[in-house]
C-alpha cells in the first residue's frame, strides 16, 4: 500500500473520531460516570496516535499529485492547486497540534483516574476546551483537503486561511536557523532517554527485576515518559515539516511511525488495567503484564532501530 492510500484511508478518522470522543466525554461529564470518562479519554488518545500517520502521509499524497512534493513550484495536473495543498497542510499542522495536545491531557486524565480514582477538574475543563478546538480545526483542515480534488465543494475563490502556508513557513524557519537542526537533534535524544529510561524501569519490574518496588511507585514516573514522548513528537515533527521529502517515502520512517503508534497504545495498558496496579513489593507480575512488557521493549527497540536507520534504509537522505 502506498502512503498516499494511507492518507485517503485515515484522513476522516480525526474528524469522525473526535465527534465520537466528544459525545462520550460530554455524556460522561453529565452522567458523572468514571467508566464513560475513561472510554472517552481512550478515544482521544487513540485518535491522537492515528493522527500522526494521517498527517505525515499527507506529504506523500502531495508528492503523487505534484512531483517534487513540498519543493515543487506547481503541480503537473493543472486542476490541482499547489497553493491550496499548502493551505491544507498549514491547516492540518494546526489541527495536528491541537489533537496531540488533547491526547496528552486525555492521557494525563487516565493517569489521574488510575492514581486518584478521579481526573482533576482543571484537566477535564482543559480537555473539553481543547477537544472542541481540535474538532473545529480538524474539520476545517479536512474540508480544505477535500477541495483539492473535489471541484463540487470549491467556492469561486480559492480558500485562504489566517495561518496560510504555516507548515512551509515553520519548515523554512527550522532550516534557516543555524542552530535549529542541532538543537532539535539534542532535544530528540533527551526525550528519547527520558522515555526509554522510564519505560524500561516499568517493563523490567514486570519481568521480575526490582521486585521489592511496588508498581504505584513506578506508575508515578509515567508522566515523565509521556513528556519524553511529547518532546520527541514535537522535535520529530519539526524535522518532518522542515524536510518532508526526506521522510515520507522512506521505508524506515514508515516502520518507525507504525511502531510508535503500537508502542503508544501498548503504554495505555499500565494506566487502564488493574493487574499491574495491584502489585505490591515482592509480588510477581501476571502473564499479561509480562507479555505487555516484552512487547513494549520490542516495540521501542524497533522505534530506535528504524530511527537510527533513517539515513541508511531507502534512498531518501
Amino acid at each position, binding site marked *: 500500500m502506498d502512503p498516499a492510500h494511507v492518507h485517503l484511508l485515515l484522513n476522516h478518522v480525526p474528524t469522525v473520531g473526535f465527534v465520537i470522543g466528544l459525545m462520550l466525554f460530554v455524556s460522561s461529564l453529565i452522567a458523572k460516570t468514571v467508566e464513560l470518562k475513561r472510554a472517552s479519554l481512550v478515544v482521544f488518545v487513540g485518535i491522537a496516535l492515528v493522527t500522526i500517520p494521517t498527517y505525515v502521509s499527507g506529504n506523500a499524497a502531495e508528492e503523487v499529485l505534484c512531483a517534487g512534493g513540498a519543493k515543487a513550484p506547481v503541480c503537473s495536473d493543472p486542476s490541482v492547486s499547489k497553493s491550496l495543498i499548502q493551505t491544507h497542510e498549514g491547516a492540518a499542522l494546526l489541527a495536528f497540534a491541537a489533537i496531540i495536545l488533547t491526547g496528552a491531557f486525555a492521557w*494525563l486524565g487516565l493517569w*489521574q483516574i488510575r*492514581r*486518584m480514582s478521579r481526573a*482533576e477538574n482543571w484537566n477535564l475543563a482543559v480537555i473539553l476546551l481543547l477537544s472542541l478546538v481540535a474538532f473545529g480545526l480538524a474539520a476545517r483542515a479536512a474540508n480544505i483537503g477535500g477541495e483539492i480534488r473535489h471541484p463540487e465543494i470549491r467556492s469561486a475563490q480559492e480558500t485562504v486561511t489566517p495561518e496560510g502556508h504555516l507548515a512551509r513557513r515553520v519548515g523554512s524557519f527550522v532550516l534557516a*536557523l*543555524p*542552530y535549529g537542526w*542541532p*538543537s532539535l537533534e*539534542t*532535544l530528540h535524544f*533527551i526525550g528519547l532517554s*527520558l522515555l526509554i529510561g522510564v519505560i524500561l524501569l516499568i517493563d523490567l519490574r514486570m519481568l521480575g527485576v526490582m521486585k521489592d518496588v*511496588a508498581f*504505584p*511507585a513506578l*506508575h*508515578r514516573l509515567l*508522566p*515523565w515518559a509521556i*513528556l519524553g514522548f*511529547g*518532546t520527541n513528537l514535537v522535535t520529530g515533527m519539526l524535522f518532518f515539516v522542515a524536510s518532508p521529502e526526506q521522510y515520507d517515502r522512506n521505508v524506515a520512517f514508515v516502520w518507525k511511525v507504525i511502531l510508535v503508534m503500537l508502542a503508544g497504545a501498548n503504554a495505555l495498558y499500565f494506566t487502564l488495567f488493574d493487574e499491574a496496579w495491584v502489585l505490591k513489593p515482592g509480588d510477581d507480575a501476571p502473564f499479561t503484564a509480562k507479555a505487555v512488557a516484552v512487547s513494549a521493549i520490542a516495540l521501542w527497540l524497533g522505534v530506535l532501530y528504524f530511527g537510527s536507520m533513517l539515513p541508511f534504509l531507502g534512498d531518501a537522505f
Partner: protein
Amino acid sequence: MPLGLGVLLVVLGFTAAVAAVGWLIDKSAERADDEDGNDT
C-alpha cells in the same frame, strides 16, 4: 550568536520547560497520595 551557544540556550530552555511541567504533575500526584494515604 555562536552555534554552540544557540544550541545550548534552546536545549536548556526547552528542557527546563519540560522539567517544570513534570515537577508540577509529580507534585499533584504527591499531594493526592498524601490525601489518600498512599505511601509511594
